[in-house]
């Protein structure tokens, strides 16, 4: 499955509530996460999306010959 | 008027990927997602299992959050109104 630029953008947007609500989720179980952990978590998510995007556009370059 | 357009509009309602393209502006045309249709799925061929998955996840989130909000956040607070 190819990750389009638009798809990557929407994933980035979606990562924001996931990161923000991370503390709520841990809060339910009584764990108070510091703000820094949210920032780190969001950075990891963004890196993962970037990797997925680069990887899929590389494989797309191979597949492009077919189209 | 309405009978004139009737036939045209019925045709318009059907997704028609083989339709010859009229003059279109350069670039992506908003609303042209149906051009990417690879197969037609009728009501009986279509099983919305993805929707069921998503909506079940939503259901679980709703229940957990409701219980948390009602029994922890609300009933757990001081100065509850008792009369």
């Amino acid at each position, binding site marked *: 499955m190819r990750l389009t630029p638009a798809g990557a953008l929407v994933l980035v947007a979606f990562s924001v509530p996931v990161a923000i609500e991370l503390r709520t989720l841990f809060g339910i179980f009584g764990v108070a996460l510091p703000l820094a952990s949210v920032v780190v978590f969001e950075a990891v998510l963004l890196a993962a999306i970037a990797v997925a995007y680069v990887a899929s556009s590389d494989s797309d370059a191979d597949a492009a010959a077919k189209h | 008027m309405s009978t004139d357009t009737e036939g045209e509009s019925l045709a318009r309602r059907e997704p028609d990927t083989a339709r010859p393209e009229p003059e279109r502006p350069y670039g992506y045309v908003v609303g042209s997602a149906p051009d990417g249709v690879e197969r037609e799925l009728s*009501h009986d061929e279509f*099983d*919305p*299992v993805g*929707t*069921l998955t998503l*909506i*079940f996840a939503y*259901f679980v989130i*709703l*229940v957990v959050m*409701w219980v948390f909000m*009602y029994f922890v956040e*609300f*009933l757990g*607070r*001081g*100065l*509850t*109104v*008792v*009369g």
Partner: protein
Amino acid sequence: MEIHAYEKLWLGAALLLIVGFIGTVAFGAVGAGVDMIDDDGGTVDPGALDQHPKFGDPGVYQSGPNEYDVYVVAQQFQFQPGTAEAIEVPVDSTVTFHVTSADVIHGFEVVGTNANTMAIPGQVSTFTVETDEVRDHGIVCNEYCGSAHHAMEGTVKVVPDDEFNATDGGA
């Protein structure tokens, strides 16, 4: 009319959810004993609050052993008592608030607690709470009431029994 099996399933789940919500609230009302603000506070003439036996001299009144009534008048832009002098009530007592407004609609919210009501001119909001912890609470007006609305605040002090000064009508 074709309704997909999954959609029927979801319809059932949605109804279950709704009944569950209503059930929880009913449990809160009956089981946990959370009472709503309702019409038992009666009405007053907002133009003649100074002639009212209690709102004429608003404050804390003892009504029984460990039972107190607090009369509060909300007006632009203060609570009386609450703003100029704090409302003082003893810990481990049952306190009934009677809140009304002398001019426009105000809110009366004891910050961070469930004590929260509207103050409507002509109507008296009555609600009872139990004080179980010595601490100070803030009060805010949480309904827009005019241009200095943001300055309308006050304090409720829950004090130890021996520090409480039960002067009739005063805090």
